[in-house]
């Protein structure tokens, strides 16, 4: 496959977003889904091509350390595919005034382009630009429910996000100050001499904090419960499911390529553990379902941070498994939660009113906890075996934290399932059943989560078959030397350029 097609995964959704308001009304609703289907096809083709060897595109035809490089290994290609499919499943089909629907569709397309750009970019500042693009579109979508509460929550999100971006920009400044380049491969090549010192670590922590805002890292995740409680379910699903994973992916790439240092790993490990503990216990105490899901999402992203802190392919494999599992489960849970909304007490008897929804919820909950035949089990198994293989005591402690929080997770999720299958509370059910909207409004939500459930079950059935590609992807991603060799074929020309 010609690597120049990589640029299309960014350019096409942007083009569609720019042109959307100008397309005739009849065709306008078709543009976005069609473009996303094309991007999905491109992602599929890229995935097949990159399994054997990663693809590199020098954007604009300028040789790597000067221009910007797009790098697609199998992990990046898989995430491009995931971006297109998840965006398509969570596509805003309707339910708004025409003008606002146009805006939401434009923003969703730009978000897809930004996410695709984040996965493929091989340049530090370009990552920052795409990260900001994803951030601004998320702000717009989060405020899109147009309630006053959503606007306050989004304002706080904007401020925290901008503070994070500022820290990340200062981190990038530090790196450029020391090394004089922005290309990730070039940085990976130079890092042992220039960046493996306190300055490099400080830069890494700043960038980690900055990207951590979107990845719901401990300390900078206070926005998540507020925004997820006020935004539309579709948007919460996009932010928790997709955008957080891409920020995580960028952090993992930086860790593998530029900062493979024990201090950086330990920081990630500690922040991940704190995220897991605080997230899962807050989810246990939460009284309404959306916030419960928000906090549990923080907990699971903590687990993913812990996984990526394990050195070598084992850690990358565990991190990918957790991230992909969460990518499927959490959007579906948010879609289902929209169906019921509100406090946990009102879920009583939900199973009788919508048996399918309740059954799906139970299925996702079981997988999230990690009950054996479901994919969630394999993800947690990979994580725990990876942690157990490390000699350091900190990793054992992390394993303990994972086990304890799994128990907490099981308690609060079973509690919800129990309420749903339990008896209806008096007085509450009247209001619920009379609205009748539980059957009409979220039909698309049910269909969306049904697709996610089908993906989950397929993954459960094909689990033995998935191990091999996952292993290959992890090996490919964790091989920093291969990345450098692929992007910068001869370091001789490089040092020539340096002088």
């Amino acid at each position, binding site marked *: 496959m010609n690597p120049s097609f990589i640029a299309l995964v960014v350019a096409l959704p942007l083009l569609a977003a720019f042109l959307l308001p100008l397309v005739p009304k009849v065709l306008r609703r078709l543009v976005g889904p069609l473009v996303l289907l094309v991007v999905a096809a491109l992602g599929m083709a890229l995935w097949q091509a990159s399994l054997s060897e990663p693809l590199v595109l020098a954007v604009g035809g300028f040789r790597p350390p000067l221009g910007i490089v797009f790098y697609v290994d199998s992990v990046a290609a898989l995430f491009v595919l995931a971006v297109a499919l998840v965006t398509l499943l969570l596509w805003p089909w309707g*339910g*708004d*005034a025409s003008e*606002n629907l146009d805006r939401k569709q434009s923003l969703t397309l730009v978000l897809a382009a930004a996410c695709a750009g984040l996965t493929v970019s091989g340049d530090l*500042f370009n990552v920052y*630009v795409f990260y*900001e693009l994803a951030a*601004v579109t998320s*702000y*717009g979508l989060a*405020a899109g*429910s*147009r*309630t*006053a*509460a*959503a*606007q*306050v*929550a*989004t*304002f*706080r999100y*904007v*401020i925290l996000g*901008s*503070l994070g971006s*500022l820290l990340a*920009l*200062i981190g990038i*400044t530090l790196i*450029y*100050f020391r090394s*004089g380049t*922005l290309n990730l491969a070039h940085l990976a090549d130079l890092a042992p001499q220039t960046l493996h010192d306190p300055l490099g670590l400080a830069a890494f922590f700043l960038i980690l904090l900055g990207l951590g805002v979107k990845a719901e890292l401990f300390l900078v995740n206070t926005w998540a419960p*507020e925004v997820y*409680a*006020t*935004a*539309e*379910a*579709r948007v919460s699903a996009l932010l928790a499911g997709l955008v957080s994973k891409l920020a995580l992916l960028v952090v993992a790439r930086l860790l593998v390529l530029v900062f493979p240092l024990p201090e950086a790993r330990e920081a990630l490990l500690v922040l991940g553990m704190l995220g897991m503990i605080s997230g899962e216990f807050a989810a246990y105490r939460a*009284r*309404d379902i*959306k916030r419960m899901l928000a906090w549990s999402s923080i907990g699971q992203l903590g687990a993913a941070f812990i996984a990526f802190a394990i050195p070598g392919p084992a850690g990358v494999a565990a991190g990918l498994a957790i991230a992909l599992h969460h990518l499927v489960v959490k959007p579906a849970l948010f879609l289902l939660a*929209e169906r*019921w*909304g*509100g*406090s946990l007490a*009102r879920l009583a008897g939900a199973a009788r009113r919508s048996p399918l929804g309740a059954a799906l919820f139970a299925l996702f909950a079981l997988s999230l906890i990690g009950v054996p035949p479901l994919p969630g089990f394999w993800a947690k198994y990979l994580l725990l075996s990876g942690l157990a293989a490390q000699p350091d005591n900190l990793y054992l402690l992390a394993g303990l934290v994972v086990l304890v929080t799994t128990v907490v997770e099981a308690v609060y999720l079973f509690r919800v399932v129990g309420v749903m299958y339990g008896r209806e509370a008096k007085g509450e059910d009247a*209001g*619920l059943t*009379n*609205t009748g*909207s*539980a059957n009409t*409004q979220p039909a698309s939500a049910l269909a969306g989560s049904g697709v996610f459930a089908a993906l989950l079950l397929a993954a459960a059935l094909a689990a033995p078959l998935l191990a091999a590609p996952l292993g290959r992807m992890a090996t490919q991603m964790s091989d920093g030397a291969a990345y450098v060799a692929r992007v910068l074929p001869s370091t001789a020309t490089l040092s020539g350029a340096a002088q």
Partner: protein
Amino acid sequence: MSEFALLTLLIGALSLIAIGIGGLVLSRNLFRIVLALSLAEAGANLLLVLVGFRRDAIAPIIEQGHALTATMVDPIPQAMVLTAIVIGVGVQALALSLAIRAYVAYGTLDMNVMRSRMETDISDAAGAQPATSQHAPAGGRPLPPISAPRLAHNKGAQG
């Protein structure tokens, strides 16, 4: 330019960042939070250009008649700052528009007051309302009934 001048500019840039971040964390007024953010961004931009500065060099523009080999300052940080400035103004406009909306709805610019109002709204929507969910108005209703009375009330009080 002397060592002293560069150090002065460095301290200036870092102080701007510190003043901005401090103001961001301490201010309760939404409008002032936006101001503090743009101060910190100005500091970060200055820092980035400072990093690309090279002593006894000219601006990275080739003038006619000049030799092509003149020493020039690093153009890449300048390009980065151009990008960062434009990003900053976009985010600022978005934050201001949200502040305007929030002010119209809640009648205050105080972050603490606004936050507690928001919490009340969230739990109201979660507990007392029917299950249709106020957060995704299916029929294109711009604002849910929960905050509409409050809006009217505030407008009255204001005018």
